[in-house]
């Protein structure tokens, strides 16, 4: 990528007198622009070339118009409102957000924000663009706050308030518990962190009281979860209807290989598919104003189900229909029956060549940056004809991939002293210093308790943290999901000591693994080793008996922290995807 100075030099200052000229990227302030903005800016010119080369007549690709509030504004806000004390304290997220919300915005820039609110009337995404993200060349996806504002109020003053509150919220999220814990995992400190903020036009269309893109997704040129005949370098794309929050939060999406778009994810039955594909979508609430709650990230969002999408007419290119009499799934929604969001009209019938476009973008962006990449995008289709379509290029991030060759010695299946093993392990490396194991008790686990389990895990994690040790973490379902019925909704900070994470299932569970959620991506960037151990087909099942024999350090209702007498050895071979944890 280009050098910082080159990139910043071409970033024009925001000028309210030129608002109508729709300059694609401008900045307020003279500080740093953070990782997200840097990534987009560095690829801006290249993207124009690529979009031209790709030559999809009916699809345009662009970075949605955005204004970057540089870290100078963040610094001024922090200093003038004397917020560092509470920011670095152990105060709750709510208290921090409240203190920030009461702060006064730097007066040098307040007029520009007011002018912006006066001139814009469509939804705006207020997104974080952190300094460390840039400095560490590391993804911080979903760690900091993002807030969407409808920006459609009649009064410009109301629009201004929403915008200012949202900016303050994103500033505050720099110091939320999850963010602090995440930074703790890096070689940097929270004191070094600074936040730039991106105000970006939301790509989408308005349908009644909702505004959302017909498609959003994350495309990766490297697939951490490549299975069967799919190679990691084939990449993976997660698609969702509505705002990308569905993907970022690790909710159910349609995950597929861009080289084989017609192949479905591995659902056991149609019933599984009906249950575990996307059932709700996120949209910006353009209707009745919600109750005032400036410290709620989803204040202006709604999460309706697919019947609402069908009323909006947005399932036309995204859904298929299940015919229970024939047992067949038919692309489109011309027939009656349950809808399945499998994007078949686009992926199988190629009614709109989005997949082909994303393939080319991935390949070219990877070549441009010299690294595997992750691209976040949103697509606004023509509400009537599907095309012309507009692809908003929202973010580009590096993917951390470790290529060191690791070999697993000996036969796993017949080997003694194996705690567990998997042939779908991720990561690459050997860790032989961990003695602490935090695990969810299999006999106590129930979906309805997953929030409590998350909270208990945090306590056990704190215990390990106090001892300045690392841990192996074993639990059930998808780690880090926000859907409590699919896994344990922890955030990175609650399991910050985990250097090995095991995602297991119990009989009766049909949950698919994390599927490259942002949570997972963040975890792997810290070189955490990951094991998927399904109860049905393990290389070696989890040795619960051995675990129960280990000395208990601390126990809660649903989880246990034990310490083995000798360190365990965890080995993962990233090439074969085999992994094993041995004791003794």
């Amino acid at each position, binding site marked *: 990528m280009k050098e910082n100075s080159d990139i910043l030099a071409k970033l024009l200052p925001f000028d309210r007198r030129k608002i109508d000229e729709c300059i694609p990227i401008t900045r307020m302030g003279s500080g740093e622009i953070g990782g997200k903005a840097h990534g987009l800016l560095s690829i801006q010119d290249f993207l124009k070339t690529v979009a031209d080369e790709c030559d999809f007549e009916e699809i345009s690709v662009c970075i949605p118009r955005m204004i970057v509030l540089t870290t100078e504004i963040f610094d001024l806000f922090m200093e003038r409102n004397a917020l560092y004390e509470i920011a670095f304290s152990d105060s709750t997220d709510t208290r921090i957000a409240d203190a920030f919300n009461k702060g006064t915005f730097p*007066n*040098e820039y*307040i007029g520009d924000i*007011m002018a912006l609110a006066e001139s814009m009337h469509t939804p705006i995404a207020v997104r974080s663009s952190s300094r460390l993200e840039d400095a560490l060349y590391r993804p911080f996806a979903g760690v900091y706050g993002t807030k969407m504002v409808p920006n459609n109020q009649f009064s410009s003053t109301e629009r201004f308030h929403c915008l200012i509150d949202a900016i303050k919220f994103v500033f505050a999220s720099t110091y939320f518990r999850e963010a602090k814990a995440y930074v703790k995992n890096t070689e940097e400190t929270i004191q070094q962190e600074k936040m730039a903020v991106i105000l970006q036009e939301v790509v989408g269309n308005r349908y009644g009281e909702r505004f959302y893109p017909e498609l959003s997704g994350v495309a990766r040129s490297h697939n951490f979860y490549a299975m069967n005949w799919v190679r990691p370098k084939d990449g993976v794309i997660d698609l969702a209807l509505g705002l990308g929050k569905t993907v970022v939060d690790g909710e159910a999406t349609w995950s597929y290989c861009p080289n084989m778009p017609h192949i479905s994810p591995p659902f056991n039955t149609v019933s599984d598919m009906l249950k575990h594909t996307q059932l709700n979508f996120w949209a910006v609430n353009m209707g009745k104003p919600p109750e005032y709650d400036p410290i709620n990230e989803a204040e202006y969002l709604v999460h309706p189900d697919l019947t609402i999408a069908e009323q909006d007419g947005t399932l036309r290119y995204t859904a298929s229909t299940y015919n229970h009499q024939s047992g067949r799934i038919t692309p489109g929604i011309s027939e009656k029956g349950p809808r399945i969001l499998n994007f078949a009209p686009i992926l199988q019938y190629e009614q709109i060549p989005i997949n082909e476009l994303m393939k080319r973008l991935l390949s070219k962006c990877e070549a441009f940056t010299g690294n595997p990449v992750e691209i976040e995008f949103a697509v606004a289709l023509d509400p009537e004809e599907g095309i012309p379509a507009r692809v908003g290029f929202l973010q580009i991030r590096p993917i951390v991939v470790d290529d060191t060759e690791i070999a697993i010695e000996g036969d796993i299946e017949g080997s003694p002293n194996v705690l567990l093993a998997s042939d779908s392990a991720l990561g690459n490396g050997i860790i032989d210093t961990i003695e602490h194991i935090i695990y969810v008790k299999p006999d106590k686990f129930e979906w309805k308790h997953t929030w409590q389990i998350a909270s208990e895990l945090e306590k056990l994690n704190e215990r390990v943290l106090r001892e300045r040790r690392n841990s192996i973490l074993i639990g059930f379902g998808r780690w880090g999901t926000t859907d409590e019925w699919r896994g344990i909704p922890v955030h990175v900070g609650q399991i910050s000591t985990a250097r090995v994470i095991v995602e297991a299932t119990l009989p009766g569970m049909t949950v698919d693994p994390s599927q490259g959620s942002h949570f997972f991506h963040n975890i792997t960037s810290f070189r955490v080793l990951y094991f998927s151990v399904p109860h049905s087909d393990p290389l070696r099942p989890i040795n619960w008996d051995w675990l129960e024999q280990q000395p208990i350090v601390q126990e809660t209702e649903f989880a246990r922290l034990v310490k083995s007498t000798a360190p365990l050895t965890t080995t993962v071979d990233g090439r074969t995807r085999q992994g094993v944890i041995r004791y003794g």
Partner: protein
Amino acid sequence: MATKAFNAFEMAQTQFDHTADQLSLDQATRDLLRFPLREYTISIPVRMDNGSFHVFRGFRVQHNDARGPGKGGIRFHPMETLDTVRALSMWMTWKCGVVDIPLGGSKGGVICDPHNLSMREQEQICRGWIRQIAGEVGPLQDVPAPDVMTNAQHMLWMLDEYETITRKKYPGMITGKPVGMGGSLGRTEATGFGVIFTVREALREMNIKPANTTASVQGFGNVAQYAIRLYNQLGGKVVAVAYWDQKDQIARTVRKSEGVNLDELLGITDRFGGIEKDKATGLGYEILDGEAWIEQEVDILIPAAMENQITAENVGRISKKVKLIAEGANGPTTPEADKVIAERGIFVLPDLLANAGGVTCSYFEQVQCNMNYFWEKDEVLGKLDVKMTSAYLGVSELARKRKLYMRDAAYVISVSRVAQACHDRGWV
């Protein structure tokens, strides 16, 4: 500072005549706008702390209220004259017009020197002023505000007296009240910030970065202090500040070529903006005479003290380096000096535009009071910035299109708005 005999009202009328000619106003409109609609001269008897009585003379002049209730400050000044108040009320009309707020122009004053009055005596003057004039001011008629040597406390006494007389609560009767007592957040900063909002826009049009500029400021009261604050925040460097030394009754200038430190100076400043000379010397400031501010080698001059400060006598001392003059005070430049400045091609931000931030925020305060709902500071300053910028752009565009001097463009916009209101009402 300059002490030459000077009639502010004559100057205001001269400026108006010039604009009326440019607009080809009819004679009736000229006759109406050349003089105030109403003038009140009052006597305020006060029992002094030593038991004696003193009768203070006070004024209220309502120049024009065609566009809305009158708006203007109350000055306490020993040299106050009716003509000065007349001039200032007329300038208020133009000021409200140029920033396009629905208010007319007024001004008031009392001949007194608060430096020599106790707080109780000042309170009696405030209450006496209201008792004499209560029927002629109010939220729907004429809304006073602080001005030279009056402050939020004076406004609160006046409001209290007014509400006692009317037996009702009228927080919108007066502006500049303390925050929490009907005052608006951001009011303190408003005038000074407003000056710099226009400076910022002017520099932008001149393709000059604020960080590459230096300035010299006359005055160290509220307007100057906040102007310096925002100018510094934008990266600019103030190298000289002129102030009035109350003790020695003389104007002085403090200078530091590497840039004055605002907070440092505020630490050695009295409530009237006087800087302690010896302490300033100790902090490494040069102490120069009061006129030295005008001859500094700077890019920007900001007269933010009194009227009649840049005159035919001292205009020649302005450095060739000066590119911009932002009039933070009312009427700081005499017409003779103005001609010289125009000939030299120095870009002028005229008083009625540059220092309109105060009245604009007063308008915001009145709006908030009338609905008894108060805004956050972000909102006040955001709206102020937008309003001031918009006013600047309007004036600058007209100046460019019609090749007018900035002061003339500001007057043309403002006078035409007021004249139109008078025509629409059928007054002339």
